[in-house]
C-alpha cells in the first residue's frame, strides 16, 4: 500500500514526522484531503485541525495558520503555532473569544476589525476542535 510522508513543523519544534495513509488540512479555500500521488500544491492555512490518518489511528494537531506544501509523496505543513490538540485550554479559548468579541464591538479602524476577525476565527476553530475531541472520547 502506498503511503505519504508527513512533516508538521513549527518554528520552535518538529511536531510530527511519519508516514500516513492520508492527511486533511484546513486550507484557506476549504479543507483539503491529500492522498499519495497528489498533484504539487502550495496553499496557506486557516486556523483549524490537521488530521493525519495512519495505520495506527488518527493524529490530530491544531494549527493557528501556516502553509502546506504537497508533493506526490510528501506533505509538509509549516505551522505558525502548532500545539497538540489535547493540550488546548478550553477556558483560554473562550476567554480569547470574549476578548475578541468585546474588541469587535469597540473596533474603530478597518485594521482593527480585520485583526479581531482573525482572532475570532482562531478561537472558534479551537473551540470546535475541542468539542469534537470530547465527542470522540465519548
Amino acid at each position, binding site marked *: 500500500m502506498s503511503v505519504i510522508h508527513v*512533516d508538521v513543523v513549527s518554528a*520552535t519544534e518538529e511536531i510530527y514526522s511519519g508516514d500516513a495513509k492520508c492527511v486533511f488540512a484546513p486550507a484557506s479555500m476549504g479543507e483539503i484531503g491529500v492522498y499519495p500521488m497528489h498533484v504539487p*500544491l*502550495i496553499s496557506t492555512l486557516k486556523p483549524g485541525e490537521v488530521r493525519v490518518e495512519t495505520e495506527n489511528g488518527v493524529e490530530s494537531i491544531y494549527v493557528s495558520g501556516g502553509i502546506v*506544501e504537497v508533493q506526490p509523496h510528501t506533505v*509538509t505543513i*509549516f505551522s505558525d503555532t502548532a500545539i497538540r490538540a489535547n493540550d488546548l485550554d478550553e477556558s483560554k479559548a473562550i476567554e480569547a473569544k470574549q476578548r475578541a468579541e468585546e474588541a469587535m464591538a469597540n473596533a474603530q479602524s478597518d485594521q482593527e476589525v480585520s485583526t479581531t476577525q482573525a482572532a475570532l476565527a482562531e478561537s472558534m476553530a479551537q473551540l470546535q476542535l475541542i468539542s469534537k475531541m470530547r465527542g470522540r472520547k465519548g
Partner: protein
Amino acid sequence: MAVGKEIKTQIASIQNTQKITSAMEMVAASKMKKAQNRMLASRPYSDKIAKVIGHLAHASSEYKHPYMTTPESVKRIGVIMISSDRGLCGGLNTNLFRSFLKQVLAWQAEGVEVELCTIGKKGTSFFKNSGLEIVSVLTDIGDTPHFDDLLGTIKVMLDRYDSGELDQIMIAYNHYKNTMTQVPTVKQIVPMEASDMQEMGHHWDYIYEPDAEAALGALLVRYIEALVYQGIVENNACEQSSRMIAMKSATDNAGDMIKELALIYNKARQAAITQEISEIVSGAAAV
C-alpha cells in the same frame, strides 16, 4: 601578627571574585545546553522551508516574487544586526561588530549606503554613535526568544524593501560552530541567493491557493522570519558558550593570582619570624 595584612585582604577579595565567576560559568554552561537544544529544534522548520523554496525556484512559475529576483544595482543595504543583551561574554560582540564594520567600509567605498535594525542591547548601544542609521530596535529578548517579538522588526525591514528603499537585506550574527568557536557571519537573506536553491532535474509547477502571489508571499516571509529566528537562537547559544569560556578563564586566572599572593604572604611571614628569632638570639648574646 600584623605581617602582610594587606595581602590577606587582597586574597580574600580575589576569592570572592572567583566565587562569582565560577558560579557564572556554571549558569552559562546549563543555559548553553538549553540554547543548543533550542537551536537544534528550530532547524527542521528552516531546513524544510529552504527545501520548498528550492523547489519553487526551479518550478517553472509564471509569477516571480520580488524576494527572489535580484535588483540590477544595489544602492542601499539593510542589515539586521543580532547581538547579545548582556556583556561579560568575552569578545563575542566586539568580534562581530569589528568584522561587520570592515564590511561597511567596503560597501561605503562602493557608494552603497547601509542602515541597521539592531536586535540586542549591545549592538544598539554600539551602533548608536557609529553614524549608521538605525531604523528599528529590539531589546530584552531574553534567553527564550519568542517568534511574535521578531515579527515587528522584520516587517519594518521588509516594508522598506517592498517600497524600494532597500535593495538588499542582510543578517549579521555569530554562527555557532562549537563550544570553543563562534564565527561572525554576515549573510544575505533578501533577495534570496541562487546558492540557497538546490538543483532540480525536471520542470513542473505547483497549484497555488488562493493565488501564486499570496501563497508565495506568505511562504517567503515565513522563511525570512525563520532565518532571523535561527540567527537569534544561534547567537544566543554563542553568547552562553562564549560566556562560559570567558568565566572559566577568569576563574582560572583568579586561582593563579591567589596562589602567587599566598606565596608572597608566606615568604613575608617567614621573613618576619626569622627576623624576630635573630633579634632574640643577638639580644641574648649581648647580655
